[in-house]
């Protein structure tokens, strides 16, 4: 194990230590004997794949769950937390990945809920203004959260944590939802916090970011600590190896992909939001040819969900010409009719959208297969055909499961995603629209899925991928467009799409050298 962590001063003790920390769920070990030392004035990265145990560890440190074994020490003394409020009172702050905000309450109320309520609401509001000014994190205390962008919501989380004047701040995947430029601004704030003497635990799986920002990195894999090292002395590849435990098979596009006829065309698509919190789609046009993969980048909540609903037919439009599938106007057709035209869809949310969690895989095969796979005859379902799809998807995409036909919810994220993608690809679609294909999926499954998308395009299908992961888009797409506030930018060849260009578009700036126009969110 490397021990090249740069200089905690000898007069300082670690702020927080976990000693042999173990968390068990039934027979499953989410964390196994984890030792971590957190020092003041340091940004400590916690690296690991999805399911490596990062969230479990920070939940224990924040008092949300009780460790099964082992202990935590705060300034050298044993610490048992009864809950987050005790963690906060000791000086531990947390910025959640899935924000712990309340959509229908105001910013000030949200902040108040994260504090211990010892000051009056008025004093608190005044202090909120002060802290947000000092750190350059502007907020309007009177607005309700649902009106705010993702970046603004994160600001609430950070300001809320800072208002407790924490000695130790935990940030869970803070840049996952930010544009590269917004992330840069966040790093400035973090550097400043570090300079103020605070300790920071920074959870991420983005290696470049960790190398750039962090002083120490602890890598978790399968619930165990693999190593603690100085990320600045490591390469991205060596960090990745520690994280994944093996070299990941490289995804390879087959050479000489032919770009054919247009298979998916969108013409001036407009769509009103279906609830007050939604985004309006405006003048979306694109053309996607067979053999081509088009990526759509963008910060979450800029209309990607609405675009998926419009393309899939979950929300058909009045005008047939808005969506054309293989030359047939389909804008007014239902999702079932579009499937019959040869389109297939993979939504972002695996459980509850892509599958019914408490139903068997065979039934989930029927969910999308009933349209065109011979699973239904005269209104009666054919169980054998349903099981056959399960078996074929299992075989082709290496879906690991405990029995032949388990409930969808019992599969791990990666295996369920492989099943869902497999279920659609086995139907040999002409057009595949897929949202966040590898979100929250382990590296092995992600490679399988990306390869499957490339192979599908190689066979002549048109593939549209929406993703927030720019690396993923760079890896598999031919062209990239950016979604912002319900508008879609002109697609550019992936080779020309620098992170900076994409970042500007994701933040709503146009690429021409004029003043950025910030549209007002509805």
């Amino acid at each position, binding site marked *: 194990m490397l021990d090249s962590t740069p200089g905690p001063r000898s007069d300082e003790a670690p702020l927080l230590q976990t000693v042999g920390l173990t968390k068990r769920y039934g027979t499953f070990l989410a964390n196994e004997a984890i030792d971590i030392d957190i020092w003041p004035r340091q940004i400590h990265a916690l690296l690991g794949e999805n399911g490596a145990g990062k969230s479990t560890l920070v939940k224990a440190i924040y008092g949300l769950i009780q460790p099964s074994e082992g202990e935590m020490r705060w300034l050298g003394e044993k610490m048992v937390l009864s809950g987050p409020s005790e963690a906060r009172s000791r000086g531990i702050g947390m910025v959640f990945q899935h924000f712990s905000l309340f959509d229908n309450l105001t910013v000030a109320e949200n902040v108040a809920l994260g504090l211990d309520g010892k000051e009056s609401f008025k004093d608190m509001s005044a202090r909120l203004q002060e802290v947000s000014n000092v750190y350059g994190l502007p907020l309007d205390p009177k607005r309700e959260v649902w009106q705010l962008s993702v970046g603004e919501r994160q600001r609430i989380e950070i300001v809320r944590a800072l208002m407790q004047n924490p000695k130790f701040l935990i940030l869970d995947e803070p840049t996952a939802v930010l544009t590269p430029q917004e992330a840069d601004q966040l790093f400035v704030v973090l550097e400043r916090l570090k300079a103020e003497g605070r300790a920071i635990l920074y959870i991420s799986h983005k290696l470049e970011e960790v190398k750039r920002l962090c002083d120490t990195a602890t890598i978790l894999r399968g619930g165990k600590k693999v190593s603690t090292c100085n990320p600045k002395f490591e390469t991205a590849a060596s960090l990745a190896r520690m994280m994944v435990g093996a070299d990941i098979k490289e995804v390879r596009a087959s050479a000489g992909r032919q770009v054919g006829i247009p298979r998916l065309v969108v013409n001036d698509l407009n769509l009103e939001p279906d609830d007050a919190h939604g985004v309006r789609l405006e003048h979306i046009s694109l053309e996607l040819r067979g053999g081509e993969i088009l990526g759509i980048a963008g910060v979450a909540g800029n209309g990607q969900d609405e675009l998926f609903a419009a393309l899939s037919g979950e929300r058909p439009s009045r005008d047939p010409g808005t969506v054309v599938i293989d030359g047939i106007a389909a804008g007014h057709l239902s999702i079932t009719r579009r*499937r019959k035209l040869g389109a297939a869809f993979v939504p972002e949310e695996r459980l509850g959208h*892509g599958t019914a969690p408490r139903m068997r895989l065979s039934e989930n095969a029927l969910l999308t297969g009933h349209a065109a796979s011979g699973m239904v005859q005269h209104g009666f379902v054919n169980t054998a055909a349903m099981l056959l799809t399960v078996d074929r998807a299992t075989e082709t995409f290496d879906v690991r499961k405990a029995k032949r036909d388990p409930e969808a919810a019992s599969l791990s994220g990666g295996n369920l995603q492989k099943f869902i993608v497999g279920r659609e690809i086995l139907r040999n679609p002409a057009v595949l629209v897929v949202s966040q294909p590898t979100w929250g999926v382990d590296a092995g499954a992600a490679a399988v899925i990306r390869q499957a998308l490339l192979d599908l395009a190689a066979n002549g299908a048109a593939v549209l991928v929406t993703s927030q992961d720019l690396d993923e888009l760079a890896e598999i797409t031919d062209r990239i467009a950016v979604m912002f506030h319900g508008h879609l930018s002109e697609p550019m060849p992936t080779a020309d799409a620098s992170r900076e260009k994409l970042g500007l578009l994701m933040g709503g700036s146009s690429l021409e050298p004029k003043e950025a126009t910030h549209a007002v969110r509805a």
Partner: protein
Amino acid sequence: MQFVLEKRTERSNTIALVSPLIAIGLTIVTMSILFAILGKNPVAALGVYFIDPLTDSYSLQEIAVKATPLVMIAVGLSLCYLANAWNIGAEGQFLIGAVAGSWIAVKTQGTDAGYWVLPAMLAAGAAAGALYALIPAICKTRFGASEILTSLMLVYVADLFLDYLVRGPWRDPAGFNFPTTAEFDPVATVPVLIAGGRLHLGAIIALIVVAAASVLLGRTIKGFEIRVVGAAPRAARFGGFNSDQLILLTFAISGALAGLAGIIEVAGPVGHLQPGISPGYGFTAIIVAFLGRLNPIGILIAGLFLALTFIGGEQAQIAMKIPLDVTKVFQGLLLFYVLACDSLILYRFRLIFASRQVSRGTG
């Protein structure tokens, strides 16, 4: 010590089968305590409730007669509940079905109308029940109004409407001013299966309903749609299933079945239209649906069991002066226990003996 729920990775099929039995056991234990509090011998009372009705053929037939409407209504309700549509107004649909069918019986009274009368009555009952159930369903799908509240409100309306008819236009002139229609003609009466007995054709219809629902839910795409739309509405929309249509469909089916049960009850065991034709079948059927695990075969068994409690309750009132309301308490408790035990299918209960007891601050 702490009591927590832990989510199971897969639903437990064993518990799905035994949970209603555990629930019945717990209910019987609770009832024994209640009997003791009421100053009755629990063993004797339970005997009157659950054993005595099974020992003579009159009571056995009577159980089947009472189970008939319960099963028919509950099968319809189970479709709604599976689709996550909360029809709790089956009592009203039952009454409206009875009224609509009775209209034909009243209008053909004393004429030489032929054998078409009864089938027409049954069809009218089912149709009226379906239409009445569609009111809350349409309020839900068109306007987003809570179907729970609207369907229930319509029970009171149906009850008052029936009351008006039998006290007003349809009152039997020869009925000594009792609020009732005249006895229906033989062609307007559901035939009995055993001469001189009480068991009538409705029991056969109930069995057909159970069989049809089993096929619908287990073998057809429509049944699958109903189950998905309730279990995972967003996934159902992704599958291309229209939840509004399914709400209308399940409400219409359950209303039709409740209406059919209503007219069968009036044209069968009761023989005329009067207030109080239902001892709360429409509400008890909710319990039957859940006790039967929203499964048609399960509902058949559960319906027979709850019919037993009706008969047992009547006999206990006569034999031991136990108030009739005890039966309602029993049914309410049973539903609670069934729901609690169902929790075991998806969750595991676990007692955690924490080494320390810290009060959780409220922040």
